[in-house]
């Protein structure tokens, strides 16, 4: 019956190298829109604390910034904290606090990757 229903006719006769299939799968994964992780209170508190500490001591930091197609790392010095609009200025860009998933020292690893 398989051949007469759904995509069966083509599934059964498709000729694909597994490396080709792998490449397609990883291409599709890159396209997928990421879900924003929910941080718990401890995590947000720790992030806030680290940010203000780095701001006060004028230390370089590394932040993990959420993006629809995967998060990215940004490095720099925090030059301003804007409590009104809930954002920080890192180097030349404003980053919304709600997008910050993690903060660490310049050459440290993020707490979320220490496993």
């Amino acid at each position: 019956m398989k051949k007469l229903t759904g995509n069966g006719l083509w599934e059964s006769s498709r000729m694909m190298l597994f490396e080709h299939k792998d490449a397609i799968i990883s291409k599709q994964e890159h396209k997928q829109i990421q879900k924003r992780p929910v941080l718990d209170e401890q995590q947000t508190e720790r992030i806030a604390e680290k940010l203000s500490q780095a701001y006060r001591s004028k230390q370089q930091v590394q932040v993990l910034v959420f993006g629809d197609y995967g998060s990215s790392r940004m490095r720099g010095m925090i030059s301003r904290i804007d409590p009104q609009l809930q954002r920080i200025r890192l180097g030349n860009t404003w980053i919304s606090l709600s997008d910050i998933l993690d903060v660490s020292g310049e050459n440290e690893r993020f707490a979320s990757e220490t496993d």
Partner: protein
Amino acid sequence: MPKPQRVIFLADCQSFYASVEKSAHPGYEHKPLVVSGDPSRRSGIILAACPLAKAYGVTTAEPLWQAQQKCPDVIVTKPRMSAYIRVSLQIMSILESYSDLVEPFSIDEQFVDVTASLSHFGCTPVELARHIQMRVREETGVYTRVGIGRNKILAKMACDNFAKKNETGIYELNEKHMDALWACPANKMFGIGSRTMRHLARLGIHTIGDLAHTPLGELKRKMKRYMKKNCDIWSEVLWRTANGMDDSPVTPDAFDGQKGIGRQTTLPVDYHAREDIDVVLNELSMLICERARAKGYMGTVVHAGAQGADFDRPVGFSRQMKLPEPSQISREVYSAAKQLFDTHWDGGPVRKIWISLGELQDDDVYQPSLFGNRDKLRHLEHTMDGIRSMFGPASVYFGSSLRNTSQLKFLNTKIGGHYK
């Protein structure tokens, strides 16, 4: 409201591997060129020939020496499979800029459902096909032929039987042109090989039209009587194909998730001894499990098989068995494959061997075994993975691969049996 009629394209790349090589080496543009497998192995056959080489009578799948006899000046290049995969994905991306419904059918053929795209681009199917053809050529150097139909089977047959043969490389197969399709001999139909054609000829069916115009009930009865078994599904597939009937959707997520992880190899010479076969089984198991671990999968079913040495008298087997527990451990997959060979191998010479691991599940839930030393094996293989990812695939392997029947070195440098 009736559903709007679908418009499906099948875009097929002409002499794909050869075209990629030609655009990579502009100096060869006006010279006959073939891509050939390794002549020192049994894969030394023509994988692709450019139209100039074909004009000399060179055909795909003939031995290299034969092609060189027909065309002494032919330029011979080695396959570069990963380059072909890259270009195939590039073409896929181009097609995806016209529709989100793109489904690869092979490395050089892709289906596109452009039903909703046509009004957006404000053009006819043929105009859109011409545009796509131009863009793919411009960006990759590959010439595509586009079959157009209201479903996938018509698009496929429009491409194979007409678009590949006409000047524009574009052909739309619809109700008005069915006679042209029906006039073709039966073996020009998708899904009919030489063996099926012989069967059908015995039933008095010689053209696609003969098949299409036989009432389905009668076809089923005739096939059953001739084949001496129930062939209802097969008959219906053939009959629907001949009549251009196909509801299958263009499925872009056909590759969502992995269904199985497998590898096969054609041996350089026929293997007769069981211990030689075991060496290769062990290596295939190792490679499969390495991939399973890298992708975070465990499998429950091991499938193994072998093909005999005689091409004309196909012997061999292909059987599967269930594992006691989901696994990604080479030793466990290997021992299952060995068991399958113990039971089903007839002792004849072996030309080709394959293993795959199926019914995959995520490996985040792992069941430690009460018996045996599973954890130790798992740890060992993870460690081997780490070494290999750092120092290369040949840095660590099982001792059995030191035997001269080992295929590991060969397997590590190949995609689909050809150079990466």
